[in-house]
């Protein structure tokens, strides 16, 4: 069995409750930091662990913490990003549903490290059941003396509150999240200043993903060096992967970083292969924003090496032949799926979710949606492919926040790797309306690269 750090006790009945979580060794990390460590010791330990942000950007968590400004007399905030809205990603929902105290324990540890006395968990509004679960967990932890004033007699005070969002993908972007937490529209802020200098209410703030915060618990319990021994290169520790699409066993899996993509898809311990005996056509490995890869490029890099579930290996080849770990939203497409239709679907999503501040994103996402819809419904022209390429290129890098890039990349990757499927839609509109392009050559072994 694979090692588990975050989901260790997932199968223990009643693990949702404080009592059972505590019986299983929960809240040891809080005792350890409050009784034996200074806040800076905690930051150092997280730095040593090599933990990288699990929300999608992969920025080293310890380094992010060390940027936090600490002016005298100004409150500092920790805000947990539980907005989880990237299509293909549902790991945080799983964690909050089943082991809410793992998040709370991580919140206390992290808040202590940062010197925060009020912390917020921002959870997307659709997760009202998870919000209730967290609120109950907070009450339990408070009743047991792990929250409130003078926690465990240490002199450290902390309150944690849960804040619901209300249906906006953009609020997963950390400055949009802060705007939303201030009761405003989720329009991302221009950076700098970064939240570490001026975040919530203009005060120094750290925003971390649910999984990143929960990961501080095993890091404190076992030590950062132990955590860093798991994984490969700069991909340390374990990672929750949300697996969806046409798989025998979709769901949330905790993996050691470094597992091969092939084993993750086909092993019975993980996804168990492609559903209904079909063949794999493509994978989006890190949530809808990251480039889609055909089977031959997701299983092996362009150099012919086995593709691994690490930040480095998934990105191997850049956007020409690689993709990205992103949030770990692993979406598998079987041979009967239409890449054009899916690309149109994703473009519609980004158009719907664009906040509208920046023209390239506001106008470009809608334009791409229309052009893709035209191709998908049999009214496309070959020049539309170049048009799409041109639009996505003009969005990327030209917006305040990464939503523009997130909207551009899936279109670029679909055209880069599946151009012949787009051309088939345009050249054979009647066929495209009645059947799918199929697997075509997308699983064929790649020709060796001649250097």
């Amino acid at each position, binding site marked *: 069995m694979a090692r588990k750090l975050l989901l260790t006790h997932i199968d223990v009945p009643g693990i949702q409750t404080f009592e059972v979580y505590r019986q299983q060794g929960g809240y040891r990390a809080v005792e350890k930091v409050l009784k034996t460590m200074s806040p800076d010791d905690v930051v150092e330990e997280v730095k040593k662990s090599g933990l990288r942000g699990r929300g999608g950007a992969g920025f080293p968590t310890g380094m992010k913490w060390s940027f936090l400004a600490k002016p005298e007399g100004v*409150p500092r905030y920790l805000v947990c990003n539980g907005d*989880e*809205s*990237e*299509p*293909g*990603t*549902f790991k*945080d*929902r799983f964690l909050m549903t089943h082991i809410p105290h793992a998040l709370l324990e991580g919140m206390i540890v992290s808040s202590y490290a940062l010197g925060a006395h*009020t912390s917020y968990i921002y959870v*997307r*509004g*659709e*997760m*009202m*059941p998870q919000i209730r679960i967290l609120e109950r967990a907070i009450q339990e932890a408070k009743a047991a003396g792990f929250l409130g004033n003078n926690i465990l007699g240490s002199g450290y005070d902390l309150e944690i*509150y849960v*804040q*619901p*969002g*209300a*249906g*906006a*993908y953009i609020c997963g972007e950390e400055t949009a999240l802060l705007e*939303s*937490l*201030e*009761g*405003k*529209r*989720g329009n991302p802020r221009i950076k700098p200043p970064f939240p570490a200098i001026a975040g919530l*209410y203009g005060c120094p703030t750290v925003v971390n993903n649910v999984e990143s915060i929960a990961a501080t618990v095993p890091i404190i319990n076992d030590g950062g060096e132990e955590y860093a021994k798991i994984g490969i290169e700069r991909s340390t520790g374990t990672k929750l992967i*949300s*697996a*969806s*699409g*046409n798989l025998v066993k*979709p*769901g*949330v899996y905790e993996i050691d970083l470094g597992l091969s993509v092939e084993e993750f898809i086909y092993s019975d311990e993980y996804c168990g292969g492609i559903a209904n005996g079909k063949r794999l056509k493509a994978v989006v490995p890190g949530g*809808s924003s990251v480039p889609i890869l055909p089977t031959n490029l997701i299983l092996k890099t362009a150099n012919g090496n086995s593709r691994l579930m690490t930040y480095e290996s998934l990105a191997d080849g850049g956007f020409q032949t690689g993709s990205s770990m992103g949030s770990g*939203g692993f*979406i598998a*497409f*079987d041979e009967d*799926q239409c890449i054009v*239709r*899916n690309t149109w*679907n*994703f473009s519609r*999503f980004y158009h*719907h*979710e664009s*906040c509208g501040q920046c023209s390239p994103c506001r106008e470009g996402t809608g334009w791409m949606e229309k052009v893709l819809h035209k191709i998908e419904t049999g009214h496309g022209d070959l020049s539309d492919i170049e048009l799409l390429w041109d639009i996505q290129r003009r969005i990327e890098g030209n917006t305040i926040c990464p939503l523009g890039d997130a909207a551009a990349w899936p279109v670029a990757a679909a055209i880069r790797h599946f151009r012949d499927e787009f051309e088939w839609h345009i050249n054979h509109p009647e066929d495209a309306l009645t059947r799918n392009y199929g697997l075509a050559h997308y699983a064929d072994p790649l020709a060796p690269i001649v250097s």
Partner: protein
Amino acid sequence: MLSVKHNEIVEFSSTLLDQFAEVVARFPEGRQKSALLPILHLVQAEFGWLSPDAMNKVAGYLGIEPIEVYEVATFYTMYLLQPQGKYVLEVCRTGPCCLVGAERIMTHLENKLGVKEGEVTADGLFSWRGVECLAACGYGPVLQIGPEYTFYENLTEASVDQLIDDLSSKTN
């Protein structure tokens, strides 16, 4: 868009006002606007939608301008700005759910209820709409029903029929 055709004059009960106060207390002095999103959820749970009058009264309660409420209510898709059916069925229509049949489920829902997306059934019980990714991709197709946002996962035509029948008989 704010409703110009409909309005509903509301009165906040003392229970609701207590809940408002509990939310406001989570934030520092002078930052009561942070309570806006949670309070709008509470109001919507109570009245089924956000009428212009309800939003104006929320603005009054928080000491902010009505426009500050409108601009938030129109930005976030969970806020319902038109009167709805008693049960609003929200089906995820984003990529991963579509790989496992969400489009089929939406077509089925439209036929079963006999109303288009956003419309209310004649008996006032149901309305439905497609919504974007609900972070339940491994259990698709999925739909949710407010105000508690209960999830119904791995939907089939049969399970949708069953759900609608159950909700109908619960009300009769």
